[in-house]
């Protein structure tokens, strides 16, 4: 095969890539299924947290790690969402997925947050929620049902979160 044949074939495949491999980051309410799985995790600060304790509030679970650039970038925005909507019946929960929490603690000392941070050291909760990307955000309504799953973080994604949170708070 010569250069020209390689080039034509590659360009055809490129077109296929663009058409067939979409990067949809958000699964809408229709795709997310029913009740969010129950879990219990140790919290930063000592106590434990179980999802059922938060029934009645709108909950946003954010799966993050200190080694994940977009996760670190997103953190201050999550903190501002927490500050604004906590009084209205909302809570953010950070779920750190690292087996060793040392790096996460170090990051939180430099970028403090006021919302609870749970440590999923054995990845059991990540598996339960079938986390497909880093970071991953799951929004659960007041009745404990999963309403939105979003993968990755790019500036501007917070608007997607806010729309969902506001509509769930109104329910």
């Amino acid at each position, binding site marked *: *095969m010569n250069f020209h044949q*390689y080039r034509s*074939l*590659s360009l055809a*495949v490129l077109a*296929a*890539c663009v058409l*067939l*491999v979409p990067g949809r*980051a958000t699964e809408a309410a229709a795709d997310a299924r029913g009740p969010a799985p129950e879990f219990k995790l140790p919290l930063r600060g000592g106590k434990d947290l179980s999802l059922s304790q938060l029934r009645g509030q709108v909950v946003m679970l954010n*799966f993050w*790690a200190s*080694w*994940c*650039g*977009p*996760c670190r970038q997103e953190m201050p925005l999550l903190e501002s969402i927490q500050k604004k909507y906590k009084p209205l019946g909302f809570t953010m929960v950070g779920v750190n*997925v*690292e*087996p060793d929490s040392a790096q996460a603690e170090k990051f939180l000392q430099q970028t403090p947050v006021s919302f609870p941070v749970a440590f999923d050291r054995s*990845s059991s909760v*990540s*598996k339960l929620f079938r*986390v*497909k*990307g*880093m*970071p*991953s955000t799951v929004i659960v309504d007041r009745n404990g049902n999963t309403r939105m799953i979003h*993968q*990755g*973080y*790019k500036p501007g994604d917070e608007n997607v979160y806010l729309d969902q949170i506001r509509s769930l708070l109104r329910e």
Partner: protein
Amino acid sequence: MRPARYLVLLVLALPVLTACAPIEPWVKPYEREKLADPIMAFERNPVSGSYLDHVFESREGARGASGSAGGGCGCN
């Protein structure tokens, strides 16, 4: 070079295969801590790497196939 032709055709077929046969990743996104470590980057210092590639290619008959993309945290 015939084996290269088959290799290239296989690689070119990969994106099309993705759409037809979704495979569950065996390394989960939350298990990529070691891969996200900067010391696991194929090219941690591009300016130095490309200079050394230039030094070798200027003195050798061989050329090509010296870059790699991919790995890392797999975020977004």
